[in-house]
């Protein structure tokens, strides 16, 4: 056997290929739709004036790092990137990852899997890597939607800001994958893990918002992955800083190895 590596990763991707492709296409078409929305709304409507009339915290809530709604990068950040990458993609990854270990143990397919010469660590790490496939494809589709869309509606937009935004999105999403994988080895119940995972996505999103809006609790933000990834910085403000991404990479690796460690210690209930 030549390819004696990553069989579990490849198997996992193959098993979930339909969902991966469907969701990625959704991400692409949603992106195209948002670019079209900018063309229709953005230039004409003065969203900024509208926003000025709202209390400060609403502006904070939506406009984490934006220039103005008339700016393509800002518009796409608020209407596309924040919704999809902060909430929808992590929710999809939650469902992707919940079944990976908890589901296998629950469904007892783990019994035969672990009767083969594969270590517990290898099982966890290969399944973690498997989620890398949808992460890369989704980010690729998002980037494609923005670039294709921008070219189609003839908006002046420098591609590299979008490239940076999606490069930084990768460790952000991998932290979620790490967290979900850890949950998946702690609780051998797929439904519970998916519920907790999706709860965490929304909960930590709210925590990030609260940390920015409420006086004196900004430290709460440190727990939330959203604190370390802000697509608006690259897309709208044209600032590229890699500090947040480095923290996220470290966190993702720590979570993946943490999950491997936990799985190595547990009984596989039969």
């Amino acid at each position, binding site marked *: *056997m030549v*390819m*004696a590596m990553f*069989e*579990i990763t490849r*198997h996992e991707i193959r*098993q979930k290929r339909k969902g991966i492709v469907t969701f990625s296409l959704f991400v692409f078409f949603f992106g195209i739709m948002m670019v079209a929305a900018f063309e229709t709304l953005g230039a004409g409507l003065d969203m900024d004036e509208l926003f000025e009339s709202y209390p400060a915290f609403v502006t904070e809530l939506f406009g984490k790092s934006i220039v103005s709604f008339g700016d393509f990068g800002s518009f796409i950040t608020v209407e596309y990137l924040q919704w999809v990458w902060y909430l929808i993609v992590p929710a999809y990854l939650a469902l992707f990852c919940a079944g990976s270990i908890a589901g296998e143990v629950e*469904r*007892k*397919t783990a*019994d*035969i*899997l*672990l*009767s*083969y*010469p*594969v*270590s517990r660590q290898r099982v966890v790490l290969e399944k973690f890597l498997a989620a890398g496939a949808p992460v890369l494809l989704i980010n690729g589709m998002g980037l494609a939607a923005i670039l294709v869309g921008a070219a189609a509606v003839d908006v002046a937009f420098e591609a590299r800001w979008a490239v940076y935004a999606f490069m930084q999105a990768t460790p952000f999403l991998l932290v979620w994958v790490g967290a979900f994988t850890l949950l998946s080895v702690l609780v051998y119940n797929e439904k519970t893990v998916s519920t907790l995972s999706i709860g965490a996505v929304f909960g930590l999103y709210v925590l990030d918002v609260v940390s920015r809006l409420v006086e004196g609790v900004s430290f709460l933000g440190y727990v939330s992955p959203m604190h370390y990834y802000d697509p608006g910085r690259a897309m709208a403000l044209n600032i590229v800083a890699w500090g947040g991404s480095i923290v996220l990479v470290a966190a993702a690796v720590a979570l993946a190895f943490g999950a491997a460690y936990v799985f190595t210690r547990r*009984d*596989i*209930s*039969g």
Partner: protein
Amino acid sequence: MNIIETHELTKYYVRPGLKKRQTMGIEQVSFAVRRGEIFGFLGPNGAGKTTTMRILLDLIRPTGGTASVLGLDAQKDTVEIRRHVGYIPGEILFYEGMTAGDLLRYYEQLMGAPATRKGELVSLFDIPLDRPVKTFSKGMKQKIAIVQAFMHDPELVIMDEPSSGLDPLVQQRFYDFLLRERASGKTIFLSTHILGEAQRVCDRVAIIRKGRIAAIEDVAELRAKSGKRITVTFEGPVDEADIMTPEVRDVAPLEDGYVLHTGSRVTKTLRRIAALPVADISIEETSLEDIFMHYYDGDGDV
């Protein structure tokens, strides 16, 4: 070197909850399986058979005691052990969305070595490789499980209730298959709650009940202890003396008949009964429970 060896293997399951509660899985289980034999773990459901097997494969960890497989520590060297062991679990579930062929190929990749006997076994057990696994009956899934366990030609195969789900004809073919495998030098460790199965294929059995081993015996001795259970009712009153023969080991009265436990010979007893006004009769193999009652005391200690 014994193929499997355990010393005082113990497993307590911790029940989650505020008060730390434990249930006993197995306690002080010690036995050895020799190379080239078919060794059976015989006991009722819940006796601890599955627990023991899962410890050997490091699916669960013991609370106490040691286990070794192929001379290696069952916990520390588990990955190396699994290169040479095939396993058929008690409950067989496969991945959805795969054909039988895909599944076997995946397992072959996981072993990291060619499955030299895959073709032979696929024909022997008639596996339709192109059919999706989710369309298979329980019996067919069991057959795929057998193929994946043997296709790498391992030294040892561990099987948990392997013939459950197989129809009687396939069961017989499976037993013949096991006997041929043993003849070619394989060691087989299986568990069952069916006395007849243990007698048919095993060389030696460990009788396990409520987490403890009651006895380890050659199958010949087991045969000597088992026999028939005859439940007969009569149309009129019949004296116990009228049906007693040297074949009968035990007799218990019923309202209108008797339950007799005999050895394997029943000719004299049947002749006696046939001479009497029989209302109804049923003849069964001695059950495992019967053997426990007669030869091991109630809670499974010898």
